[in-house]
């Protein structure tokens, strides 16, 4: 669940030289590499799109030497964000020990004063800006997220600024009807924008499945830098907003199909 629409906008605004925290990233990393938006990186999982393979464009950029990389692991980055959310300078863990991942990270080893065990310290990570795509939010920024959480609540509290994009705006009354559904409270949020299908072409759990065809198209076209340039022009730079991008790639009709696959309705049909 990534803020794809926001990533497109970052490219459209030509943002450069940012530091990026690549924590379980997939298509979002691919887009930011295409726009060379960052030159410093904390890397947990990058370049890959899990079972779909590696992004040629992301590989090219990461192999260009333009990016200063600090290696971490998925847990390390969630621990670093946890530390910031707790308002403490670090949290200890037992991963990283003995590996090159440790050597190329910013972790430190101490001997636990209680048990003498070696622990890898994870320094707090205070992002200047966090952008989180959620299912629902009210105008104040009280957010509801369904399905698995990455470290969304922690991230909103760790970051100095938090921007929320949501599938749907809902009323404050609805939030207060069932407070246990709220994942991010308003006082952690600085801006709220309603961006339906904001995670397209990714999978927004309980909303719409990923557009696998379109994701494969990205991987295919990236193999030829020239072709890829035109592809980006058509799909990002020439698009006013996310809806224009969607309309160029199947529009409402495809979104409906992706919703049907998401809810496994086709499976019920097949039964």
């Amino acid at each position, binding site marked *: 669940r990534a803020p794809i629409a926001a990533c497109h906008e970052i490219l459209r605004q030509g943002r450069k030289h940012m530091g990026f925290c690549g924590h379980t990233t997939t298509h979002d990393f691919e887009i930011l590499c295409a726009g060379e938006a960052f030159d410093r990186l904390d890397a947990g999982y990058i370049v890959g799109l899990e079972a779909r393979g590696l992004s040629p464009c992301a590989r090219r950029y990461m192999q260009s030497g333009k990016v200063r990389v600090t290696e971490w692991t998925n847990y390390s980055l969630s621990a670093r964000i946890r530390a910031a959310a707790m308002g403490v300078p670090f949290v200890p863990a*037992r991963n990283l020990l003995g590996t090159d991942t440790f050597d190329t990270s910013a972790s430190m080893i101490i001997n636990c004063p209680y048990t003498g065990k070696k622990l890898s310290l994870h320094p707090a990570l205070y992002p200047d800006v966090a952008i989180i795509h959620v299912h629902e939010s009210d105008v104040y920024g009280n957010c509801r997220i369904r399905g698995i959480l990455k470290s969304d609540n922690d991230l909103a509290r760790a970051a100095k600024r938090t921007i929320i994009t949501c599938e749907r705006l809902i009323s404050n009354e609805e939030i207060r009807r069932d407070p246990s559904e709220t994942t991010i409270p308003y006082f952690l949020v600085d801006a709220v924008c309603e961006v339906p299908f904001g995670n397209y072409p990714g999978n927004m759990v309980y909303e719409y499945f990923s557009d696998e065809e379109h994701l494969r198209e990205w991987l295919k076209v990236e193999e030829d830098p020239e072709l890829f340039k035109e592809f980006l022009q058509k799909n990002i730079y020439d698009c006013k907003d996310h809806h224009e991008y969607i309309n160029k790639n199947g529009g409402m009709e495809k979104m409906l199909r992706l919703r049907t696959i998401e809810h496994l309705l086709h499976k019920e049909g097949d039964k």
Partner: protein
Amino acid sequence: MTTAYNAMELMICVASRELEDGATLAVGTGAPCAAAMLAQKLNSPNLSIMFEAGSINPQLPEMPISVGDSRAGHKAVMVSTLGAIMETCSRGYVDYTFLGGAQIDMYGNLNSTYIGGTHQKPKVRLPGSGGANDFGSLCWKMMVLTVQDSRRFVEKCDFITTPGWLQGGNSRYEAGLPEGTGPYKVFTNMAIMDFEPESKRMRVISINPGYSMKDVQDNCGFELLKASQITETEPPTETELKILREEVDPHRYVIGR
């Protein structure tokens, strides 16, 4: 005449037999997930599969493409967070983990970060640890699933992303990693290997049908130890292949590669 099978199908079927009923297992996507699903549908219905992104013990309608997609959380008993899964491993609740890797050395150390060049300017940049270092450090038994090929089985990894037995002997625990954890078995298309208890060096214990010890050693960049009795691996059965192809990976995401 057993049905024909490809290398990936063989590895998945053989690996899945290791996962006893009631065990807990942490996986990412790809072949490891297929092996876990196959085991759950066959002889280990109570195998608890935990996906890195947070879903616990789902009833998978089909192979998930990503650890975080709605398939991975389908009819799970719980959807928690990535942090919760890793902490559950750190607390000692997770028996097995399955990892792949671009390079593996004689002590089971894995490289999934980069090959060639330098860390800041690599020739081939890979995804990095993801959850691999975490699972490899924190789960009791690490299992590796990869193709038998001397470009993968190397004398020395360009980068140790995930800890195996590190420099062998007791070096893993001296580095501070939890006592009792460590690499357990390696499954390739040609053989099954474990780690000799003293030196912690990789050792062949079973060879897959159609291959010889020479084939295995020829496709390995370092000298493999040999167990006193090396058995012959049972090939995939009709049922294993049928379930793998029809239920586990009908879109052939993994077995098609």
